[in-house]
């Protein structure tokens, strides 16, 4: 459909093809799976390396009075251990670093797409690909369910999905069924909404910028000033969204993990 509309002369739709994945290194297909390395994967690796180097270099030579990279790393660490995981309590202490990693990785992946790059580098935002955000959400889902089943055991954890104590005896079986279905679906909707929220916010911002720039391509140079001004404002807003979405993703992960740790309370 993209190509079809492109030949019809819609420059905006043509520009939207920029959001697609492009394979950088072609690898042979294994069955139905295509293991080719795309630009999304490359930029994901790049941001992972940036996060690693940031904390590695900062931890290499620690000073009493922090300077340079150490300040950034300490701000992130304090934010993750203090503010984000404040409500998880003593029991969830080992997840401080998962949340810290998620938070810094999502910030870097969001911001890496906002850095202007020449077209030869096939610039893209990894979090504008739903596979990436789903991967991150599946990690949170796995941690949540592992915590729930390990801490409470199968009976007690599934029991916390049933009707709360104190309901009339006659209604208990019916209510149990309804509560179980709702909670069971809820467990799967949590990671789904995490993934879709991050993906949707990033893609929506990119689409707006693309459409505004596509207007220049479509209707001529006269639109450069208004569209350009709008795009600049939108890009500034995108920086804000990059931070707020990383914050929301990690704080909701904390809430979900916490709800599994304290299930049935």
């Amino acid at each position: 459909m993209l190509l079809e509309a492109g030949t019809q002369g819609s420059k905006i739709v043509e520009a939207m093809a920029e959001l697609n994945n492009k394979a950088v290194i072609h690898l042979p297909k294994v069955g139905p799976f295509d293991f080719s390395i795309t630009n999304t994967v490359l930029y994901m690796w790049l941001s992972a390396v940036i996060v690693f180097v940031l904390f590695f270099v900062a931890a290499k030579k620690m000073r009493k009075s922090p300077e340079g990279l150490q300040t950034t790393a300490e701000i992130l660490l304090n934010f993750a251990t203090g503010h984000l995981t404040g409500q998880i309590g003593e029991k969830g202490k080992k997840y401080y670093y998962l949340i810290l990693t998620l938070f810094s990785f999502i910030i870097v992946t969001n911001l890496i797409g906002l850095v202007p790059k020449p077209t030869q580098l096939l610039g893209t935002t990894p979090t504008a690909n739903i596979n990436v955000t789903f991967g991150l959400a599946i990690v949170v889902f796995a941690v949540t369910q592992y915590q729930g089943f390990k801490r409470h055991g199968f009976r007690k954890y599934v029991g916390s999905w049933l009707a709360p104590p104190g309901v009339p005896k006659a209604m208990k079986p019916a209510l149990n069924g309804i509560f179980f279905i709702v909670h069971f679906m809820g467990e799967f909707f949590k990671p789904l909404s995490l993934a879709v929220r991050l993906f949707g916010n990033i893609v929506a911002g990119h689409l707006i910028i693309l459409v505004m720039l596509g207007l220049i391509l479509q209707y001529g140079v006269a639109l450069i000033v208004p569209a350009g001004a709008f795009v600049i404002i939108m890009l500034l807003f995108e920086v804000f969204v990059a931070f707020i979405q990383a914050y929301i993703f990690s704080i909701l992960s904390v809430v979900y993990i916490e709800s599994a740790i304290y299930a049935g309370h």
Partner: protein
Amino acid sequence: MDVHAAARLAAGIAMGFATIGPGIGIGLLTSGATQAIARQPEASGEVRTVFIIGLALAEALALYAFVVAIILMFVVA
């Protein structure tokens, strides 16, 4: 009306209607948060956390419709 036109129209309608609910929700949420901070400025940190979580949950509803609209635009049409 052919399928392609219908799908594009549906994408626009879906997006427009889906923003009504979250719009009202975020408005109520912001008004509540401002009042809470105005009455109790010392609790502004906690109010902000709850506010942002609620914001994210309300916003997600519009984003589901956004994904549906994207599917309608680029997959169906």
